[in-house]
Every structure is written in C-alpha cells, then in structure tokens.
C-alpha cells in the first residue's frame, strides 16, 4: 500500500528548468567526465609522440611491444581498481604473482600437467588474496599496513620454499602442453599477443562486475560510505574479503602469463610492478578516497604508463628523464581528475 501524503521536499532548491538537448549532452559529458579526461590525456600523448617520434610510433612494432608487456601488470591493475574504489589497497600483489607461479611449478612437477598447474596457480593466488582480506577485515588492520607486511611475507615464503635457485625454466611446462602456451602468450594472426586479449577479457569481466553486477554496486557504496552500506544491510566485510581474493587470483594469473612469456620463473617476479600498477590505477582516475573510479580509466592508464619509457627513449631523452616524466604525467593526470571531479559534481 503506498501512502498518499507527500514526503517533505524543498522543490525550490531543485532548479526549475526544462531539460534541453544541450543540457542532456552536457549531462552525458559530466557523467563520463573521468573517462573523457583520461582518454583525452592518452590522445594528446599519442599525438605528440606520433609527431615527434615518427620512426617509432608510426610502426607496428612498438604497439606489439605494448600489447606484449603492458598486460603483465595491467591484468592486476583492473581488479585492484575495484579494491581502491572500496577504500582498500593491496601492496602485496607483486609477491602473489610469484606465489602463483611457484605453486604452478610445484603442481606441474608433481602431476606433469600444466593445466592442473594453472588451476593450482589460480587457487593459490585466490587463497593468498583471501588471506589478505581476512587479515584486513577480521583483524581490523588497515589494508595499507597489512599488505605491506604481506608483501614481505609472501615474497619471503617464495624465497624460503625455493632456496635451491633464484630462477626456474618454464620450458618443461611449455613442452608438456604447447597449446596452453599458445593460448596464454601466443600470437593471434601471428601478430597480436594473446596476453593482450586476456587483458581485454579481464577488463570486460571487471567492467561487468563493477557496473552491471550487484557486487560492483556494493563496491561503490562501500567506498563512498561504508557506514551507510552497513546500515542498509550490505555485507561489507564479505565483499571486501572477496575483492582481495579477486586481486590475488588476478595477480597469480598475471604471474603465470609473465613467466610463460619470459620463459623463466624468477623468484623476484613482481617486485618491480608495484608502482606501475598502482600508478596506472590512479592515473586512470580512481580516487584514493574511494567511491569513484572506472575500468576504462585503468585500462588506458596502464598503456600510458607503459608508453612513458619507450616514448622518452624514442624522443631521444636519456634514462634520467624517465623518472621526471613519470612524475610529471602522474601529477598532471591525478591533478586533472581531482579538478574535474570537483567541477563536475
């Protein structure tokens, strides 16, 4: 039964204007402002590189190279976006990459099957992630601190369990199932690296999860106002633990792809990916304060980060310029997002 009385609303403050065509367009721009922003940055950068370094950027080699190497960390950046939207963070994903591949090799050596190894790898990553989530949610340790600790813990676990060597060849696993290798890191039509397709698949899956699934709706709510979410019956703790689990599984997957591609498992796998991955997420417009963020932003941000070093080299800028440019690009992009967010809302 609906009530007849009108609940109180002050309609004077809702501006009385008719909605016009230009208003609707402007509203569309405002709604997708973050995405427009980062795509704009990418287009500008690309245009500049196209003009200034034609030898590199008008050839397909560089793009194949991006498609080959960006997914190594891009695949992790996508689910991490959800985690950061929910006001959490994970600094241990690089170490979980190594945990995943270590478990792959352990299962492979025990069973001779790379497929079982892959399953073991993903489960290990999921388990590590869920443990991270458990520590953060049930013990109440802030995720920044907890995952700094877990970063060392997981890396230490890998080093201790693999004391015999610091790298392990992937060749035996590759030979045992060449089809799997093609599926993971082969070349589609002889040109497109398979891992790029995987990154697109992960991007689509996380987009659907974030924007079309109840889990994603809850992610935004938890990040925006965890108190409100809790009062309205959202199982905040369970959602957060699952997010950490997803990040763990994605990290393990990224680890196996990287190792297959490189041909070797280095026990230091992932230790260099912390900053590029997180930079890609923040560059893409996700706010560290939570509640906002987009998958497209992270996807584009991953490629912008990936392009900085080769772009600088192609422009003839020596190695010492790389850091400066990284910093410049990050500060400009995050600044742009902060300003845009303030003005759109």
């Amino acid at each position, binding site marked *: 039964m609906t*009530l007849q009385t009108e609940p109180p609303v002050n309609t004077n403050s809702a501006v009385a204007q008719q909605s016009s065509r230009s208003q609707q367009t402007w509203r569309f721009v405002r709604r997708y402002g973050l995405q427009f922003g980062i795509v704009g940055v990418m287009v500008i950068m690309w245009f500049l590189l196209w003009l200034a370094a034609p030898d590199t950027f008008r050839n397909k080699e560089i793009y194949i190279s991006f498609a080959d190497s960006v997914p190594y960390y891009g695949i992790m950046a996508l689910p991490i976006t959800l985690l950061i939207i929910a006001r959490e963070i994970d600094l241990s994903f690089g170490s979980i990459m190594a945990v995943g591949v270590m478990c792959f090799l352990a299962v492979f050596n025990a069973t001779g099957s790379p497929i079982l190894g892959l399953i073991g790898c993903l489960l290990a990553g999921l388990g590590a992630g869920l443990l991270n989530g458990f520590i953060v949610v049930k013990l109440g340790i802030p995720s920044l601190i907890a995952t700094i600790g877990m970063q060392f813990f997981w890396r230490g676990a890998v080093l201790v369990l693999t004391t015999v060597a610091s790298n392990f060849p992937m060749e035996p696993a590759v030979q045992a199932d060449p089809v799997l290798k093609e599926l993971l890191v082969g070349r589609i039509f002889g040109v497109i690296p398979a891992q790029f397709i995987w990154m697109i698949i992960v991007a689509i899956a996380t987009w659907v999860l974030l924007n079309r699934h109840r889990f994603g709706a809850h992610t935004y709510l938890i990040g925006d106002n965890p108190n409100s979410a809790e*009062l309205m019956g959202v199982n905040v703790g369970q959602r957060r633990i699952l997010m950490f689990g997803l990040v763990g599984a994605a990290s393990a997957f990224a680890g196996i792809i990287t190792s297959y591609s490189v041909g070797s498992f280095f026990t230091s796998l992932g230790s260099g990916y912390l900053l590029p991955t997180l930079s890609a997420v923040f560059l893409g417009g996700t706010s560290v304060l939570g509640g906002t963020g987009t998958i497209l932003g992270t996807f584009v941000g991953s490629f912008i980060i990936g392009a900085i070093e080769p772009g600088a080299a192609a422009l003839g800028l020596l190695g010492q310029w790389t850091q400066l440019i990284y910093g410049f690009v990050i500060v400009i992009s995050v600044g742009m997002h902060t300003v845009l967010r303030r003005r759109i809302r």
Partner: protein
Amino acid sequence: MTYRLELKNVSKSFGEVKSLQNVTMHVDQNEVVGLLGDNGAGKSTLIKIITGYHKPDSGELYFNGQEVKNLTVPRARKLGVETVYQERALADQQTLWRNIFLGRELTNKFGLLDVRKMVEETNRLMIESMGFTSGAVTADSVINNFSGGEKQGVAIVRALYFKADLIVLDEPTMGLSLQETRKLIDFVKGIKRAGKAAIFIDHNVFHVYNVADRVVVLDRGTVAGEFLTKDITLNELTEKMYRVAESGHLD
C-alpha cells in the same frame, strides 16, 4: 490484538557501557510512538536493535506476536521494518537510483543489475513521491548537491518504496528547514492514517508531542515512563523530561 512490535527485557552493552538495561516496550498495529530521552539514553541503540543492526545481549523481540531470534537487517526489512536514519544512510557521491536501491539492488538470478528497471522506478518515485518535476534532477543525478530536505526525501521514499509496515524515524528533523519539518510531521501523520505504525525519535519534545499517540521516555538505558499524549500536556511532558534528565525520576 497483537502488537506490531514488542521488546521484552532487552539489554545491550558495549564493553563497559550499559546502553540498554531490561527495556520492555511495544508498538501497536496502528500507532505512532514517540521515543524521547536525553543524549546517551539509549534511543539509537534501541532503534538499531529493532532494525537488526545490533544483536541484543539478552531479551526477546516479537513481531506481530511471533518471536524473532537472530534478527538481521535484511530479515528486519522482510518483516516490514524500514528506517530513516539520523545519518540518512546515503552515499553522497552516488546517483539517486543507486541510493534508492542501496543494499536492495534489483537483480536477475545471477546478480546482474536491472539498471533500466531501477532507473524507471526511481523516475516514477521522483515525480510521484518526491516532487522532482523539473528536468534538472534525474535518476542519474549525484545526490551530494541535494539539500537536507531533499536527502531526507530520498531516505523516506526509499523506506516507503519497500512497503514498510513499521517506519522508524531517527531524528528526522535534524537539518531541516521549518517548512520541511512541517512537511515531515504531516508525513508521519499520514503513516498513521494509512494504517501503519511508526517510531519517532527526536530531541524536540514539541515535534514528538505533536505527532505521537504515545510517548516512551528512556533514561540512562531504561524505560523511565510512558504516557498517552492525550493524557498529558506539552508543558507537563517537558517538565518531566527535565526532571528525569537531572534526577533520573519523572516526578
């Protein structure tokens, strides 16, 4: 006739703080109960127990005569309890439709959102119940620019949409203008006319007296007294409130 809601000997402590001690109260099928008490009396804790957010340490809850153990927020909602929280329980950076369906998103069996339906329903509610008739505010508008009264409207419409039988309003007049407050009072009277029940908490004795059939006074975690508003004048009630705050006794 069975009560819509009954609490028997409900207690709740947080560490050393005894928030509620052996509270027994009820709400009839069709009445507005005003819950009065000074700061720290335990009103918000009581409300959060009724809505399933907190579990009582001891005591029983009865909805329409049936005892309910292990009440949770989703379960309380199924029983017809809807709350308009003091904090509004809204997510400021999110859109209107996300706020209306906060925690109760319409999905198919795989959990995929039915965004179109939610936006449709929100648009309908906006015009019918919230009075947003101009084109400036849509289901996709982010609510952080809404006024206090508009946000209140969102919280109330949300409670109504999900077919509440018992509406709990926790300090609903906080932050509202005079006109918005009057609309809220009228609205609570409308709940009564529609055959439902409400629990109305407010610091302002005047508002509560205006709208409640019965007043329950909480003091330091216990029920200090109950009065039918028709049996007591506003002055008498105000006096008793001061007295109980100072001395712990109503007389």
